[in-house]
């Protein structure tokens, strides 16, 4: 885990506290519980269950997810916004090395579809049972297994060469090349 996560017990209070309590034993550790922000680490094996529980909270929507390359794997952060309370509760789950696998929640929550594809493209996290794991962000010519948002990827030195310019075979340029 990262260095800044406090080890002290955070008291659960207010609406954010209620939401965290409703997650029950899925919660491993509470990092922050403030008036409008909550940060919680959850059991990575039960991500689907946590998504269903958060979806059941009235007025909740999945704002987005964040993937972070950390020492032990890819940290996947689910940011749930709840309106009209104006609260953002972030659930963290670790997709551990070496498999980097975690359950997909896209079958239950359509909003997770694109962002899980993005995390797969850029960080190499593997989402089990994702309905449509095609490339979204990276170009089709980008090599397999190169993940540009990982910490060991240098954006200048590791950049793969650009593909050749292509002319579609069925279109003949009229009048030849022009300057």
């Amino acid at each position: 885990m990262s260095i800044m996560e406090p080890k002290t017990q955070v008291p659960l209070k207010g609406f954010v506290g209620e939401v965290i309590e409703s997650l029950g034993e899925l919660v491993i550790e509470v990092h922050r519980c403030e008036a409008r922000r909550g940060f919680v680490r959850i059991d990575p094996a039960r991500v689907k269950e946590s998504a269903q529980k958060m979806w059941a909270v009235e007025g909740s929507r999945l704002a987005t997810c964040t993937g972070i390359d950390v020492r032990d794997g890819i940290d996947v952060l689910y940011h749930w916004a709840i309106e009209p309370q104006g609260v953002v509760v972030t659930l963290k789950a670790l997709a551990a090395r070496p498999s980097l696998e975690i359950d997909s929640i896209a079958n239950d929550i359509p909003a997770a579809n694109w962002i899980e594809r993005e995390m797969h493209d850029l960080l190499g996290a593997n989402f089990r049972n994702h309905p449509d794991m095609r490339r979204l962000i990276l170009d089709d010519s980008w090599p397999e297994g190169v993940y540009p948002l990982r910490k060991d990827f240098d954006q200048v030195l590791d950049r793969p060469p650009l593909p050749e310019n292509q002319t579609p075979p069925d279109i003949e340029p009229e009048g030849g090349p022009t300057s």
Partner: protein
Amino acid sequence: MKKTNGNGKRTIVNLGPFHPLQEEAEFYQLYVEGETVVDVDVRISYNHRGIEKLDESKTFDQVPFVVERVCGICSASHPLAYIQAVEDIAHVEVPERALYLRTIVNELERLHSHLLWVGLAGHFLGYNTVFMWAWKYREPVMDVLETATGSRVNYANCKIGGVRRDVTDEQLQQIGKVADEIMAPLEMLTMAVLDDPVLHARLKGVGILSEEDARAYGASGPTARGSNRPIDVRRDDPYAMYDRVDWDVICEPNGDVHDKAVVRLKECTEAAKIIRQCVDQIEPGEIDAKVESIPPGEGCGHVEAPRGETFHYVRSDGTNRPVRHKVRAPSFNNIPTFKASCIGEQIPDVAITLASVDPCYSCTERACIVADASSKKPLYTFSDLVKLSQLKTERMRKEW
């Protein structure tokens, strides 16, 4: 594959990688049976610039100048969301005058963005007068944005702990004057759009996004508020000075293109009201809290940009650079709603449905043109689809 209509033939119509309505690169594949769209597939990221990766190599103070270039129109919202995420980590108390200035710049941005959209939507429907009017009224707003920040785009106004540039009393009066003077043209524009029977026939019941779908896809902004979801970060999680001024969250019940247009037009009036009140209430004082360092931690910031909620997440390890900075623009959640709203529509209606969420990609690369590498001729122009849309309006106008 399910066959639904007469001959049961399914055809793929490729739109792109040009957007049918804006000069940005994205790729739609419409699966059509006859004229009816039965499925949509979207491919984005033709202009991905890797800003999240780039930010990891910038200091906390440099990042706002990078993220305002995420989008040429939302160039006040993205830095503000990032700055609020950092201020969430460092628990900064921002001076009141700075908060008022942030509110003014963000509302001016909303005003000019919505007017831009109204103009474009008018143009694509064949209403070029609306286009000319809307862009004419947008111009004074751009002028006072320059007055307030020194620039028409990429304002470089926000910084961690406050704003970078103060305004004089004369400049404030100038901003207030523009907010007053735009009220009458806005009302005229709103009435002109709402009272037009052809526009009613053209937009009502087109591209309906249901309330449940809006929530499931995580839609926000006018896309959600046009679908009867009264969510607005400015009211729900107040930032800047939105809790000190009097304004309404505009919400419409039907979820069609017409309602999304109405939401945007009415929001322009609300934005002008907010600017007027800020100009009246603002007091002299400090504009910068002078933040020295960012402690380890993590924070979320979200801002109601013209197109919806802009969400930023920042993680700090106590050094002068963010470990991770996540940017989620509103269109990332709004574009997948096409899967719900375009299905069952006619092809000419898809153009305006796609435009109705005001999709915004990597907006700064607007001038990108895909051309044949050897002949330099464009492979595809978006005018064909616009033409279809304009012809349909013309036909309806004649029938009326």
